[in-house]
């Protein structure tokens, strides 16, 4: 006579299912743990970042107060800088008009007499004069054209010969542009 097995054998599938359920429970526990830890971490980070922000804000307010206390000196320094900057700007833009006019007169007056000169801040010039022959006008033109360092270009605006009681007189007018960078060295 054999023994009677009243308890049914647990099949493998059921065993696996029970094991799987156990694993799911462990996963659930870890999930909850993860959520809790992540929440705590984020809250902590948020708290510390807020505290840091408040501390830095206070430091900024302090530094601004320090700068404001020195504002009077800063205003003076800025005024000085503005004035010096204005001076430098004007000087940089300016040029020695007296030197340039003297030079023009020297170039032209060797062979003629200058009746008028004009020079503006764009270095545009014009010279009018009179001489006794066309040849002198040509020589003056040639001399000016030779000075390539100082004259960007030279035009003979007009030339004409007039007859007077003393003889003939040739009236001429040159115009052109001078090179500013170079005339400073005149």
């Amino acid at each position, binding site marked *: 006579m054999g023994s009677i097995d009243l308890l049914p*054998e647990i099949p493998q599938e059921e065993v696996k*299912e029970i094991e799987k359920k156990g694993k799911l429970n462990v996963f659930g526990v870890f999930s909850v743990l993860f959520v809790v830890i992540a929440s705590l971490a984020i809250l902590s980070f948020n708290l510390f970042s807020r505290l840091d922000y408040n501390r*830095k804000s206070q430091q900024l307010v302090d530094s601004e107060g320090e700068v404001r206390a020195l504002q009077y*000196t800063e205003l003076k320094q800025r*005024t000085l800088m503005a004035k010096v900057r204005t001076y430098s700007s*004007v000087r940089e833009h300016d040029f020695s008009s*007296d030197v340039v006019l003297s030079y023009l007169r020297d170039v032209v007056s060797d062979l003629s007499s200058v009746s*008028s000169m004009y020079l503006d801040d764009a270095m545009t010039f014009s010279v009018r004069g009179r001489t006794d022959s066309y040849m002198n006008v040509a020589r003056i033109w040639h001399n000016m054209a030779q000075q390539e360092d100082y004259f960007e270009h030279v035009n003979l605006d007009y030339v004409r010969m007039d007859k007077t009681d003393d003889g003939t007189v040739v009236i001429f007018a040159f115009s052109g542009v001078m090179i500013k960078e170079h005339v400073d060295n005149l």
Partner: protein
Amino acid sequence: MADQPTEEHDTVVPVSSTGAEQAASPEVAESTAPVEASSTESPASEVVPAEEEASSAPQSELEKAVRKNTPTVVSGDMVGDPSSGEFHKKASSIKKGREIIKVEEKDIKLTTRLADLIVPFASLGVLVLIIVFVFIPFGTEILETRDQTRALADETRRNEAKAATVRSIDVSALDRTLKSVSQVVKDSMDVSELAIEVETLALDNNLSPRKQSVSDTEDVVSSSSKASNGEWVPSYTSAISGPFSYMGSFDDVTSFLNDLRNNSRTIMSLGAVSLTSRYDEDLDKEVWNVDLLISGYTAEPVQTVSIAEPISATVDETAVQEILLRTSDSGSTGESANSSDTGGNRE
């Protein structure tokens, strides 16, 4: 009933996998009741395949037979001729029972599987909601706060550097230098001031005035258009300008022009200069008429300043020396030498 042992049989073979399944299916129990095994039966009555013969447990053999849906007689009441009607009846009953078991197993598994999935999916949903509505906003806020904190720190550093720069300026030297510079680049200038100053220089150079007309203007200083970032930004400077006309010898005129540029107390620039010569019979010599446009520049004191705007403690040393030299030449203040000595913050 199915598992109830009898005295005639040695072993009771459970057909279904679990007792629960059996309880849930009385038909199965009924159908399996006659299927009992006995070790006393002759081998001739068995139609179990050869590979299953090796199995030691009779209930396992029956179970396998049920699962394979084969008419099998292991032992017990089903002993007999497989071709008999009773045998087929019992086999059909086993088959029917197995089919019911299958369907119920399937239902139970499906129900169990769905029940098992509800909690994980609900948890997953809650987790996703927490991430979307709590973690992400908080994380974003942390990042934004960090950026703002960094910006605050940068600004604080900039302010501290600026305060250190301003503190390094010698205030007494700055006052002296500013006083001298303000004589050349005035805070403001009246029309009459410029006219008087030009007139003084003209008389110093033996020129006679012909006409003058001065007005307030605002001028663009071309060279000051060079911004630090390379963009063209026009800088407007207050100026008083107007045409002046004098007459005298050519040398006196050029000397006057030179003084206007280099020796005037106020910084001035010349616009168009026109020279015309004529012979003056009264003086018996050549006289030059000069017509020119003169501008005198001013720079108002800085009234407001931004905290964020950086400042330099140095100024253009060359320009400052030129200005101090000009005030020294004019002899009006007599303190340019001191200013030059004490200006320790110049470039």
